[in-house]
C-alpha cells in the first residue's frame, strides 16, 4: 500500500507558479496557433478528398479513409519511402563520419586553425537552392568540372552522365546533401569535444591506453548525448530535405530521386491534391516520430 504525500506549497511558491504560468501563456498560445492548428488541419485534410484549401468552388468534403488506402496501395509511395530511407541513411552516416573526423582534427592546435574552421563551416549556412545550383554545374555530365578532373586523373575514360542516369543522380544528391550537412556535425561535435577535460586523456595515457582506446573509452562515451542529438536533428533535416533535391534533379530522372517530400510537394502544389498530400505528410510525420522515439532514451538523459 502506498501512502500519498501531500505537497504543501508556500505562498511564495504559489506566486512563482502563477508567474510561470503567465509567462508560459504567450508561448502556449503561439504553439496552439503555429503548431497545433496546422497539425490539426493536416490530420483533418488527410481524411478528406479535398483538391485545395481555399477553393471557392469545392463543396465541403466528408471524412473518408480513401486517401490512406490509396496511398498504401500505391507503388510510387513505397518506392519514394524506400528512396527516402536510403537517401537519409547514406547521407547521414557519411556526413556524420566526415563531421566527426574534422571535429577531432579541429580540436588539435595548429596554424590557421580558425581559418580552416571557418572554411569548413562555410557550407552550412548556404541556402539549399544555391547549393543545388552549384552542384548542377559541378556535376554537369557534359562540361562539368568533376568529369574533367576524373578524366585528367584517368579515373574515367568517358564523361559520367551524373544527372541523367538514375543511380548517379541519387549519388549526386547524396554528395550534395553530405556537403551541406557535415558542417553541422563538425560544429556540434567540436563543441562537445571542447567540454571533455584533458585530464582524462592524460590519466589514460599514463595507464598505457593507445589513441584508439582513448577514443572509444573516453571521447565517444563523453560525446554520446551530443552525437544522438546531432544525428537526430540532422537526420530529420535530411529526411525532410526538399529544396536541394528539387533544384538538382526535380525528382528525376525517371523518379530516381523522388523522395517523400518531393512526392508530397508534387501532390500538393503540382496536382492540387491537398487531401492526398496531407496523408503523405502524416506518414512522413510518423516516420520522423520513429526517429525521435528511438533517440528518446538518450535525450531524456541529456535534458531531463
Amino acid at each position, binding site marked *: 500500500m502506498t501512502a500519498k504525500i501531500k505537497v504543501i506549497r508556500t505562498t511564495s511558491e504559489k506566486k512563482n507558479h502563477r508567474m510561470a504560468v503567465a509567462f508560459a501563456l504567450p508561448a502556449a498560445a503561439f504553439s496552439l496557433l503555429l503548431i497545433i492548428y496546422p497539425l490539426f488541419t493536416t490530420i483533418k485534410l488527410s481524411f478528406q478528398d479535398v483538391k485545395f484549401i*481555399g477553393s471557392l468552388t469545392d463543396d465541403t468534403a466528408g471524412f473518408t479513409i480513401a486517401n490512406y488506402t490509396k496511398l498504401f496501395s500505391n507503388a510510387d509511395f513505397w518506392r519514394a519511402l524506400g528512396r527516402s530511407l536510403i537517401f537519409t541513411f547514406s547521407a547521414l552516416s557519411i556526413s556524420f563520419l566526415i563531421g566527426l573526423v574534422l571535429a577531432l582534427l579541429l580540436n588539435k592546435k595548429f596554424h590557421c586553425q580558425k581559418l580552416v574552421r571557418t572554411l569548413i563551416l562555410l557550407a552550412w549556412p548556404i541556402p539549399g537552392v544555391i547549393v543545388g545550383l552549384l552542384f548542377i554545374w559541378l556535376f554537369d*555530365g557534359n562540361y562539368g568540372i568533376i568529369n574533367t578532373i576524373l578524366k585528367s586523373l584517368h579515373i574515367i575514360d568517358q564523361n559520367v552522365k551524373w544527372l541523367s542516369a538514375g543511380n548517379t543522380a541519387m549519388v549526386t544528391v547524396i554528395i550534395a546533401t553530405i556537403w551541406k550537412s557535415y558542417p553541422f556535425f563538425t560544429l556540434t561535435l567540436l563543441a562537445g569535444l571542447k567540454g571533455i577535460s584533458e585530464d582524462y586523456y592524460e590519466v589514460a595515457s599514463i595507464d598505457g591506453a593507445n589513441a584508439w582506446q582513448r577514443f572509444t573509452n573516453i571521447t565517444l562515451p563523453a560525446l554520446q548525448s551530443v552525437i544522438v542529438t546531432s544525428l537526430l536533428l540532422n537526420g530529420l533535416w535530411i529526411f525532410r530535405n526538399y529544396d536541394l533535391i528539387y533544384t538538382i534533379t526535380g525528382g528525376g530522372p*525517371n523518379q530516381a530521386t523522388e523522395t517523400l517530400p518531393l512526392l508530397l510537394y508534387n501532390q500538393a502544389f503540382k496536382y492540387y491534391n491537398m487531401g492526398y498530400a496531407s496523408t503523405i505528410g502524416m506518414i512522413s510525420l510518423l516516420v520522423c516520430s520513429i526517429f525521435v522515439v528511438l533517440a528518446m532514451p538518450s535525450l531524456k538523459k541529456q535534458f531531463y
Partner: protein
Amino acid sequence: MKKKSLSLILCATLVFGLAACGSTKKEKKNDSSSGEIVLEFPSWQATEPGFQEFWEEAVAEFEKRNENVKINLYQVPFDSYVDTLTTLYAADTPPQITHIPSRYFAQFSDMGWFEPLNDRLKQTDIIENWSNLQDGLQVDGKYYGVLLLGNGYSMYYNKAMFDEAGIDVPTDVNSFMEAAKTLTKDENGDGDPEIYGFGACQVTDTNFYNEATSFVVGLGGKWSENGNLTPMTSDTTKEALKLYQSLFVNNYTPTGLSVEQKRQYFVEGKMAMIFDGPWVASLINDAAEEVKENLLVTTIPFESVPGSMSNSLHIPATISDKEKELVWEFIQMVTENDFQKLYMEKVGSPSPSKTAIDDEVLEENPFLGQFVKDAEKAQEILPSGYEKDYGEFTQYIIDGVMTMVTDPYADVATTLDDMKTKITNELGK
C-alpha cells in the same frame, strides 16, 4: 510586488504584440482612415532585366495617375512563384494585381479565384485588337484575365558554326537532323562531343515538357484533343518522339541539362541550335561581342510552330470593389499602345496587341519580326481538354518521355501506350 507587476506588464505587451501580428494585411494596408490604398503585385519578372524596367515604369505611371494608390511590386522567384501565389489565395489574401504564367490559368480559375472580365472588356477594344491566344483565358464564354504575352517557339542558331561546316540553316526536319549530326563534333574522339549540333534540356520540370511537346506539336502530333487521348498514340506523335529520342541516342545533344544550362551553353558557343521562346533574346544581348553577332533566330524547321500563352494579368474575385476597379484600371493602362510598345522595346518579346506592332518597333529589335511571325502561327502546346489537370498531366508526360530519352531508351510506342493507360486511369477521361 515588483516582480508581479513586471510579469503582468510583459504578458500584456506580448498579448498586444500577438494581437497586432494577427491583424490582416488588408486591414493594415488598405485602412480607409489613412486614405492610401496599397495594391500588392508579386511577379517573377520584377527584377528580370527588361521586364523590370517595363513594370517599374508602369507602376510609376499608375501611381502618378492615382495619387492615393501605391503598388507594391516585388520579386518572387519563378521556381516558387505558383506555390507562393497558391498559398496567398488559399489564405484568402490574394495579391490584388495577380500575374500568372498562363499555363496555370485553368487550375486557378477552376478554384473560382478570378473575377470574370466580360463586362469590363466590353467597354474596351482589347478583345478585337488582341492576339487570338487571349481566347485561352476563357471558361464557359467568360474571360478571366488579359494576356500579356503569347509566344511561338523559335529556333536560335549559331551562324558561324553553319558557315564553318558549309551547310545551310535547316528548313525542314531532314535538314534539321542532318545539321544536328554534322555540327556535333568530337574532336579528341573520346566519345564526348565538345560541340553539339542541338541543345535539349533534360531535367524533370515543365521546360522538358515544353521542349518535348515542341517536337510533337511541331511535327503534327498531339497529346490530346478535347480530353480524348487518341492522338497520343497516333503514328505522327510516335514518329515525332522517335526523332526527338534519336537526338539523345546519337549524342547530338548534351544530356541532363537544365534549361538555364542549355541557354548558357548556347550563348557560349557550345551548341549550334536550340528551340526556345523570345525571352532568350535578352540573354543573347548580354553575350560576348564576338559570339553575339553569330547568334540568330529563325522559324523552327517543322511543319507547325509550337507555342503557348505565356503570362497574363487577373483580378482576384474576393477583393473589394474599389480594389477591383483600380486593378482593372492598371490592366487597361498596360494594354494601351504606348505601354505595349514599351513592353516590346524593353522586353524584346512580341505584344499581343495587333495595333502596337509597327515598322518602327520592328526596326529597333531585329529578332522581334521573327517572334511576331512565330507567335501568329503558334499551335498551342497545352494538353487540350486537360488544362485543369495541367500539373498532373504534364508530369505523366515528363515521366514517360524521360524514359525514352535516358539510357536504356524505352520503346516509344510501348511507352506511349503505358502513358495513355496511366492518364486514363488516374485522370478519369
